[in-house]
């Protein structure tokens, strides 16, 4: 073994050590930089995710509250929407009825079916309300009236249409609803009338006449509203 060889043998491991150190430091810094990059990307993502949702959610909440409010253009009562109003919505009529929706993409859906859509609101914030959708029906009853024979309507209604055509010789003097006189004419009632009754109880109709009234002489038409439960969803994006 010469001195040069010994020197070479001594230098190589320490140079290796030095290079290995620097390489290790380099790799370590690279790893830390990678972790930092992940952290920064994560924080950016976290902020981007929270953006804009507060304003959209608030507008969806406000619009939904206006739709179900009792003084709204689509509502019959609080949380009760009229079926005819709800089925004939167009984007223009919706923005006229709810001016706050102008300039935003809004989608209104009932039980998942879209009623009206202004712009693309997918991915926006949604607010849901429970509503009843009311449909007006007409039911006509024409039983035979007489002393002690009354008609009790099975469903509640707010108004009654009456058509009085007594047989010749019979005079219909009064008509009562729930004991309250709603029509009275001592000379005899004849023709078509509309009376208001209480919506908070079922109505019993009684007719006073000086003779018997066969079926068909007094026709009573009620307009009960039939309600179905539905979920209203208002989605706002942008």
């Amino acid at each position, binding site marked *: 073994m010469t001195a040069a060889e010994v020197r070479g043998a001594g230098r190589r*491991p*320490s140079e*290796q*050590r030095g290079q*290995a*150190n620097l390489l*290790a*430091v380099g*790799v*370590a*810094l690279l*790893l*830390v930089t*990678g*972790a*930092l990059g*992940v*952290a920064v990307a*994560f*924080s950016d993502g*976290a902020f981007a995710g*929270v953006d804009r949702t*507060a304003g959209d*959610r608030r507008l969806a*909440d406000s619009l*939904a509250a206006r739709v*179900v409010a009792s003084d709204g253009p689509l509502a019959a*009562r*609080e*949380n*009760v929407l009229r079926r005819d109003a709800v089925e004939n919505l167009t984007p223009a009529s919706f923005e006229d009825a709810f001016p706050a929706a102008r300039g935003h993409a809004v989608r209104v859906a009932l039980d998942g079916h879209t009623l009206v859509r202004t712009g693309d609101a997918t991915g926006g*914030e949604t*607010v*849901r*309300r*429970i*509503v*009843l959708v009311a449909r007006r029906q007409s039911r006509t009853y024409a039983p035979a009236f007489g002393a002690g024979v009354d008609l009790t309507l099975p469903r*509640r209604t707010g108004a009654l249409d009456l058509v009085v055509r007594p047989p010749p010789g019979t005079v219909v003097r009064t008509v009562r609803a729930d004991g309250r006189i709603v029509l009275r004419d001592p000379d005899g009632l004849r023709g078509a009338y509309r009376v208001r009754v209480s919506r*908070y*109880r079922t109505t019993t109709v009684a007719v006073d006449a000086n003779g018997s009234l066969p079926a068909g002489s007094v026709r009573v038409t009620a307009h009960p509203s039939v309600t179905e*439960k539905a*979920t209203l969803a208002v989605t706002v994006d942008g």
Partner: protein
Amino acid sequence: MAEGSARGQLSLAAIEAAVGVLLVLGVTAGFALSVPHPDGSVQQLDAYAHDAGTVLATAPPRHGGATRLSEVTASRARFERERASLRRRLVRTLPANLLFRVETPYGPVGYPRPPGVAVGTATIATANGPVTVEVWYA
């Protein structure tokens, strides 16, 4: 001996790198776990509770009284009689993923409320006392 100390230096740097990476990732995890999400779910639950109460307070009763709610709260006997149908009505009215509890002056109707869950509340005044509707996600 030289190879052993070379290995020793390498593993030390590796440990340092691992500690550094763990620290940074730990801060990131703290970020991820501690950002509160105001997802508006309590507001939505409150809206559901308010709507359920409104629908009950204006629905026609089964037998007598002005509305279903006034019928149920008219007397204890009426309450006991109408209790089951009130529960069925609430199950039909509320969406399927909600559970409810209604506190009346005569007792509760519905499910027991689990602790620690976000709850929406609404209170309706009736002639015989307040009725409180609570809803939560099942």
